[in-house]
């Protein structure tokens, strides 16, 4: 059994904005083991990105975060700024969706990779430059020695994303959090990035948290999957188990909604994702659920293990 790297308990995030308060995440708990690829799946507004950003205090000041997130012996949510600065980019790294806006257009790609090495690991300028070339090679950028002096706008979207990954990996982090890393990329480029991530996990042993709304991407590389809805965990299972025996009606709905050949109609989930201003005292999915009953509308379903290693928060779980 691999060690637990990250242990998040009862994480809640609220936003106080001009428009009112929003409960983005409600008492979410999950763990991440060494070398594991965890897929966090959900549609917009489910809180998946907010969850990860809150771990490293990357949310705007309007956010109120509570709960605990133990990593390397400290609680990330209670850590000091100095401690977080040491962890960000070094032990836990982020890769974002838009590689164009995540890279500084005024500096060469090599310089941006080297900067991380210099700042976090104290490399000299020369050593950092050499290591930068190695890292670009690691992320399979062809001819890295010449690419290193290019500017972001000279690279394609896929290349830029690889650079982002190189920057994220520069300090050999324990965890790589990738938030929709391939959503903005073409299909053929996406395949390459997924291959790369798999390679990283195999060769470097980095644990990866892959946040996405794309169930196909998750099917490709995740070991375990969490399905989120309205800030709560709806279902959690090893990947094969989830796709073969989905239990939560929302997961079943999501899988049924994927376009494919031969069906007359895709499965629709009526209604909309609720925008909550405070935690709902009952099942958040009840209004849209074909299995909802009085109990769903009056109690919050707790996570239960309904099959080996397979958790669901539902009063009426079961594959159809």
């Amino acid at each position, binding site marked *: 059994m691999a060690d637990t790297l990250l242990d998040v308990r009862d994480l809640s995030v609220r936003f106080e904005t001009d428009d009112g308060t929003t409960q983005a995440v409600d008492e979410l708990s999950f763990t991440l083991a060494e070398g594991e690829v965890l897929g966090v799946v959900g*549609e*917009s507004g489910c809180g998946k990105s907010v969850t990860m950003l809150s771990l490293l205090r990357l949310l705007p000041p309007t956010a109120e975060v509570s709960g605990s997130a133990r990593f390397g012996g400290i609680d990330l949510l209670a850590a000091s700024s100095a401690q977080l600065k040491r962890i960000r980019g070094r032990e836990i790294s982020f890769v974002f969706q838009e590689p164009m806006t995540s890279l500084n257009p005024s500096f060469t790609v090599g310089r941006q990779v080297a900067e991380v090495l210099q700042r976090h690991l104290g490399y000299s300028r020369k050593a950092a430059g050499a290591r930068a070339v190695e890292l670009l090679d690691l992320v399979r950028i*062809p001819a890295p020695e010449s690419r290193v002096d290019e500017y972001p*706008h*000279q690279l*394609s*979207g*896929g*290349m830029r994303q690889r650079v982002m990954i190189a920057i994220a990996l520069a300090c050999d982090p324990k965890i790589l959090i990738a938030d929709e890393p391939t959503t903005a990329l*073409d*299909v*053929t*480029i*996406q*395949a*390459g990035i*997924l*291959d790369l991530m798999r390679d990283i996990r195999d060769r470097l042993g980095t644990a990866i948290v892959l946040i996405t*709304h*794309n*169930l*196909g*991407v*998750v*099917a*490709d590389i*995740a070991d375990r999957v969490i399905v989120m809805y309205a800030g709560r965990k709806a279902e959690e299972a090893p*990947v*094969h188990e989830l*796709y*073969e025996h989905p239990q939560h009606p929302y997961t079943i*709905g*999501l*899988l*049924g*909604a*994927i*376009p*494919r*050949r031969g*069906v007359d*109609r*895709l*499965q*629709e*989930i009526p209604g*909309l*994702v609720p925008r909550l201003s405070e935690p709902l005292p009952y099942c958040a999915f009840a209004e849209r659920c074909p299995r909802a009953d009085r109990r769903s509308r009056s109690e919050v379903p707790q996570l239960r293990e309904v099959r080996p290693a397979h958790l669901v928060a539902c009063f009426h779980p079961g594959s159809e």
Partner: protein
Amino acid sequence: MTAPPPVLEVEGLVKHFHVGPQLTGGGGIVQAVDGVSLTIGPGELVGLVGESGSGKSTVGNCIVRLVEPTDGTIRILGTDVTHLSRREMRPLRRDVHMVFQDPYSSLNPRMTTGAIVGEPLRLHGIAKRRSLEQRVVSLFEQVGLRPELRHRYPHELSGGQRQRVGLARALSVQPSLLIADEPVSALDVSVQASILNLLRDLQRDLGFSCLFITHDLATVEFLCDRVAVMYLGKIVEEAATDELFAAPLHPYTQALLSAAVVADPAAQRARTRVVLEGDVPSPLAPPSGCRFRTRCPLAEESAPESVEVEPLLEEVAAGHSVACHLVHRQREAAQLLDLASEPA
């Protein structure tokens, strides 16, 4: 009995954009679309698939005349619209409508959704006041929106609702052809499903033809009768949907299909992938001859002529066209074999 005229006939469409001098170098010509031919019959749903830089959106923009084609012809319901002036186009605009990708920017934030949906009706003088109101109400119902929502502004609606408004607007004057440019790409999966179902239902009820432009193969597989695959401004393969997905002939189509992820871990991980080398070449300087040769796993060894000679889109089986030297050669070889085996 003669077959009904095609709703859309595009022949040899070319669109080049002139780009001014940039930081990286002097100005140039973006060869966005370079010789695309396409026909859509009445009630047909045709998918136009391609990645970024393929020129698929430009094709759509040319058909709707948002952009003036550099060369080629576009015929809508038999009328040549390629170089018509704005005024001449106006009455013909009834027949073709467009649905856009971004549900947030495709609706004027300062107009109520009812006014937005009613605008085409008003512009074409089809209905006024009370009958207009009634028409708008029925359109809202047709796309599955409560008619009361017509008094709201776009920012008060969700992405899926806005997309429905966009559809209602496009269908308000009962066009013969709907151009849908990535209409569901910006939506969540479950909302996508409802819009796709809606599109399918509407098409069955109203019988319009549709050109569905997207990068997502799965949507095309679900919705379309025929598919055309584009790469760097050209169509590389075109076939009936079932046939294309079952037996893709062009190496790019094969790569595209194998790269698309499938929501089935066992199947997904068991697949062998065709991996394409390198980046998509810039449309400012597409490769000579076969544009795909720089990334094709087979070109260098098996098709040396692809450096100089461009493969033409030719029919290799009923309703199945491919633009690839290798495929053409194989077909010729097969034909020769057939000839050779025929009794003298």
